[in-house]
């Protein structure tokens, strides 16, 4: 029987799939801990795209020739693979876009335009990434909806009591980040879903950080919208998706318009193509769809459940250690579930200086506000370091991070 935990030797083998992990930085082995920004890619994903370009490249849809057929098949197949991966009922519920950001904009524009008016409210969490905040603020400025934010409590978890108060009959949409890209918190999605459903609001889940790590079934979850980016889950840049329930997609007007998404055009008007193509205007990123499909196959091959278990062990291990490092101030990870993603600061040291120091030793972490300024303001921090792990990261790499942080502390705080 297969182990539900990835073994050290499996990780070693997995690491060989990722060419970049051999890279040296200043003669030091690269330690890549910026996975929440984007993950690295296995050779199979890289090669699936080069092979496609060498053998089957052609524009999709409406051509009779074989290359176009192969490209179309691969492209539609990628929709099916994503649909299956997230438990959607049909590939028609999967709209390919550039990234989670575009998916969120599509919702705000198209759903917003069709379903929202000035007396309506959209409720978000204060943890949202800018991409699930700004489109709603823009919509607010345009049509006068109200946008409200559920705050976090002292312990870093969402304030579900406040959520109950904020979500009312006026709430037409509840939009929540499933896993925070700053705190690593995994929110209680089912509880939030029930709150949304109790007032008949649509329920939008930003899965950009969760889908790479956590098994997801949108049908079980009962969300109306789900978005994610391929590049954060060992897939290519340039592609992400919007999942939405079919009835919703049918009723929503198209967002981008042009070739491929229409049925008929005259100088007087146009009618739309069937789903999901109604929302996919112009030549899509079909090469990237091939890479995305391959990325999902790669993850399925390992199994998301095992990735999650491995990362949970890593998270506990790192958390225990961080607690012993008194010069470190870290945020979150107090209560509830978390990703192996940590935001922290060396006390008294600017995170950009600390990041430069780590970089000199080959360690890649992010530092900044992580596109979540409202959360940072709420937490009263300006900037933080963030180390985000993925299944190809090891305990050894975590150790190296700890010892280098100690060096940095000694250097800056002497």
């Amino acid at each position, binding site marked *: 029987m297969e182990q539900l935990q990835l073994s050290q030797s499996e990780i070693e083998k997995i690491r060989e799939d990722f060419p970049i992990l051999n890279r040296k930085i200043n003669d030091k082995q690269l330690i890549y801990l910026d996975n929440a920004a984007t993950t690295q890619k296995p050779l199979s994903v890289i090669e*699936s795209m080069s*092979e*496609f370009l060498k*053998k*089957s490249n052609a524009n999709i*849809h*409406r*051509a*009779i*020739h*074989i290359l*176009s*057929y*192969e490209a*179309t*098949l*691969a492209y*539609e197949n990628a929709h099916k693979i994503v649909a299956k991966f997230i438990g959607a*009922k*049909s*590939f*028609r519920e999967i709209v390919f876009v550039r990234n989670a950001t575009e998916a969120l904009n599509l919702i705000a524009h198209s759903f917003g335009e069709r379903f929202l008016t000035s007396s309506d409210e959209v409720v978000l969490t204060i943890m949202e990434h800018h991409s699930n905040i700004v489109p709603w603020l823009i919509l607010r400025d345009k049509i006068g909806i109200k946008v409200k934010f559920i705050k976090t409590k002292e312990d870093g978890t969402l304030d579900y009591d406040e959520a109950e108060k904020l979500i009312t009959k006026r709430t037409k949409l509840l939009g929540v980040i499933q896993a925070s890209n700053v705190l690593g918190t995994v929110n209680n999605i089912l509880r939030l879903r029930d709150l949304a459903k109790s007032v008949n609001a649509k329920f939008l889940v930003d899965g950009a950080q969760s889908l790479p790590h956590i098994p997801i079934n949108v049908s079980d979850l009962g969300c109306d919208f789900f978005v994610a980016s391929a590049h954060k889950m060992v897939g290519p840049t340039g592609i992400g998706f919007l999942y939405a329930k079919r009835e919703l997609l049918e009723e929503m007007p198209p967002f981008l318009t042009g070739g491929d998404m229409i*049925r*008929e055009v005259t100088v007087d008007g146009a009618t739309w*193509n*069937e789903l999901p193509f109604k929302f996919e205007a112009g030549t899509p990123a079909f090469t990237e769809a*091939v890479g995305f499909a*391959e990325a999902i196959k790669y993850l399925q091959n390992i199994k998301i459940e095992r990735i999650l278990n491995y990362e949970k062990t890593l998270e506990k291990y790192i958390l225990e250690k961080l607690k012993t490092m008194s010069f470190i101030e870290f945020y979150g990870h107090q209560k509830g579930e978390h990703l192996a993603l940590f935001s922290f600061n060396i006390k008294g040291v600017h995170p950009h200086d600390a990041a430069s120091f780590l970089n000199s030793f080959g360690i890649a972490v992010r530092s900044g506000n992580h596109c979540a300024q409202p959360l940072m303001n709420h937490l009263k921090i300006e900037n933080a370091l963030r180390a985000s792990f993925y299944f190809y990261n090891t305990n050894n790499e975590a150790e190296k991070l700890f010892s280098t942080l100690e060096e940095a502390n000694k250097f800056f705080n002497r």
Partner: protein
Amino acid sequence: MEENKPLDIDPLMMEFLLDHYKHPHNYGELEPAEMSYEDGNPSCGDQIKISLNTKNGIVDEIKFKGKGCIVSQSAASILTDMVKGKKIEDIKTISREEMLENLIIPIGPMRLKCALLALKVLKRAIWGKQFDGDDEDE
């Protein structure tokens, strides 16, 4: 990507369809007709209209009219032959596969929509718009 082996229409084999195309069976329109339906492939603009009359639950008369490619028009010719004298009930069970088999020659996947247009129109003529012949690919 997996290796795909798309079937393609061998032009020499297309002759069989070409005969039907040039000399279509059951061409025309029934007026009045008990049931009729017209539909097209939006991507190419091609059209087929099928009209039929029944007697005791059996297809008594059937005709088709249309314009379009060899595959779609010959399929209509072949399909109308197939169902003449058949029980209406039995038409429900005509599968896409059965339709394709009756075209004799293998149909490439890019031409599937052509090959299946007549079947869709026929089923909609009998069971109305809620019959969704398109959505096999979920």
